[in-house]
Each structure stands twice: as structure tokens, then as C-alpha cells.
């Protein structure tokens, strides 16, 4: 199948893509979708953003013992079984997200809405788990100010949770647009772009879950 745009162009008129079953999009100077390009650049910058907090966590990891800071240590508060379940839920939300994309590509808007809602629901379960976890940690004496572990842990996982929350809002907006009949098959790229964000949040959690929770502390 031919690529949608074969050569760069200054034109901004809608160009029906050859053989793409009715998808149409704007020609761009780069020859690639501007919206998708923007999302990939954003995700690339997000890799640097999360990299900063993950490396900060590692820099301060285990330093509480060295300087004699009070407060619980990671192994004393982690509930790996619980966090594994929430991680599994987030992983499965990536599956429902790609199924939503496949649904809109087929023009199956009923399933699109089901999968979008399922993805948002899984995201909410993950966030609910994180809120529960944070509450439990706080009850056990760990807060943002308690020690280095508390500061770096809550900052990193809290920022990730904020990203998931943004993703949930985005998914619900798309679901609402679909309910209003304002999301058609030719808008499949909008679903793919939101999916890129959602999957990125998922891969960041893959790294966080391993680096923060699973890697031996000593």
C-alpha cells in the first residue's frame, strides 16, 4: 500500500491517502502527521523528565541509613503483591487501548467506546491503588518530608500518577466525543495519539515498578 503522502508539500488542503480506506489528512512539509510528530517529540522530552526523577531516586537510594534519617525504609512499607496487581491492571489497559484503536479503524464505534471506557476504568483502578498505597505509607509514618526515600518515592510515583490521571481525562473526553457522534473513523489518528501517550505512561511504569519496587535494596 502506498504511503499517505509521497513527497513533502506546502499544501495544507486535505489529501485523501491512497488506499487508506478513506482516511484523509493534511499534507505537511515533513511528510508525516504533525500531530503525531508533536506527540513523539513530547514523549521524547517526557523520557528526559521521568529520567530526572528516576535517577534522583537512585542517587538518594539507601542514603537514609548512611545519614541516620528517621522513618520507614522501602522494604518496611512496600506491599509487592498489591503493587503487582495494580501494575498488571495498568499493563492490561494498554491492551484495551490498542483494541479501541483497532475498533475505530474498523468503524466499530460501539466497541471503540467500550474499550475506551475499559482503558479509563483500568487507569482509575491503578490510581485508586496508588491513593490506597500512599495512604497506607502515610499511616506507617512515611510522608514527603520524612526522609529521602519518602521525598523521592512520592515525587516520582506521584508525578507518574498525575500523568495517568491526565490520560484518564483525555480518554473520557474522547469517549464523550464518540457518544456525541463527533468521533468518526477518519479520526482514528486522534485515538492513536492518545494511545501513544497512554502506552508511554505504561512503559514508564514498567521501569518504575522494576527500579523502585523490585530491585533489591541492598
Amino acid at each position: 500500500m502506498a504511503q499517505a503522502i509521497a513527497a513533502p508539500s506546502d499544501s495544507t488542503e486535505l489529501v485523501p491517502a491512497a488506499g487508506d480506506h478513506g482516511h484523509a489528512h493534511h499534507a505537511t512539509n515533513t511528510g508525516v502527521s504533525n500531530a503525531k510528530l508533536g506527540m513523539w517529540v513530547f514523549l521524547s522530552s517526557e523520557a528526559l523528565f521521568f529520567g530526572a526523577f528516576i535517577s534522583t531516586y537512585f542517587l538518594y537510594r539507601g542514603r537514609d541509613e548512611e545519614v541516620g534519617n528517621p522513618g520507614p525504609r522501602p522494604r518496611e512499607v512496600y506491599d509487592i503483591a498489591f503493587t503487582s496487581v495494580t501494575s498488571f491492571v495498568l499493563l492490561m489497559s494498554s491492551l484495551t487501548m490498542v483494541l479501541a484503536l483497532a475498533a475505530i479503524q474498523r468503524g466499530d464505534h460501539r466497541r471503540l467506546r467500550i474499550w475506551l471506557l475499559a482503558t479509563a476504568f483500568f487507569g482509575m483502578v491503578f490510581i485508586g491503588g496508588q491513593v490506597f498505597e500512599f495512604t497506607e505509607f502515610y499511616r506507617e509514618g512515611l510522608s514527603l518530608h520524612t526522609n529521602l526515600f519518602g521525598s523521592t518515592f512520592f515525587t516520582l510515583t506521584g508525578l507518574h500518577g498525575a500523568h495517568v490521571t491526565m490520560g484518564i481525562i483525555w480518554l473520557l473526553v474522547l469517549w464523550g466525543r464518540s457518544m456525541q457522534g463527533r468521533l468518526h473513523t477518519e479520526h482514528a489518528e486522534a485515538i492513536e495519539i492518545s494511545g501513544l501517550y497512554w502506552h508511554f505512561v505504561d512503559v514508564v511504569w514498567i521501569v518504575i515498578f522494576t527500579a523502585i519496587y523490585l530491585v533489591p535494596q541492598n
Partner: protein
Amino acid sequence: MSETETGTETGTDIVAEHPGETLEQHEQRMHEIAPRPELLPMLPGEIKPHPKPRDYVLIAVVLCILTAIEVGLYYLEGDVNDNLLIAMLIVLAVVKFFLVCSWYMHMRTDQPFFKRIFVVGIVLAMIVYGIAIATFASTIPSEL
């Protein structure tokens, strides 16, 4: 035979040729004319068709198995050499990372340009923060 009957009707045509239909009628018709999963259309700029939904599910199963192995490894702490454990956990995380990027983020099927942009960010982050960790790792305790 009309386009509708052949199942090749486009999204633009649907809106233009059926102005009076309700949302439910539109969805029912789209469901009836929807092509089979193996005929998923490509999005603008993509160089290969997306995987089939069955492939997505298979990838999810693999991701679940890898996650279960990761969690299982956690409980082996103390029984297995820590360095070996860390190496295995890193390998598993990297495999999961690449599976999601390749299959779910469609790096396999989309323009390589997008992949390069993302890889630049990842590599830059690894270099910058690798240097930061190497530089400050030995100095931070004395400065606390």
C-alpha cells in the same frame, strides 16, 4: 454494486451520504460493513498495517507472563545472587518496554522517523543521567 455493498465505503462518504441517520443507525451500519480485523486500514503515513487484535492479545499474554516472572524473582531475593537478580529484572523490564513500544505504540509499522525521535530522547536521558549519577553518587552523602 454500490460501495456500501462491497464494504469499501469511506468515513467521509458515510457522513456525506447518510445525513439523516441517527447515531445508532450509523453505528449499526458501520458494524455491518466493517472490514474483517485482518483488513485494518493503515493510518496516514504508516508503512505497514497494524497488527491484528489477536496479536495484541498475544502480546498482552506475554507481558503478563514476564510480569509474573519479575514478581517471582522478587521473592527469590536472598536465595539468588543480588547481581544476577538485578540483571534478570533489567532484562525483563527492557523486553517488556520494547514489546509495548514495538507492538502497542506501533513502532514496527510507523515511519522510522518517529522511532528515531523517541530513541534520541531515551539515549539522551541515559547519557545525561548516567553522567549525573556517576558524578554525584560518591559526593552526596558528605553533603547531606
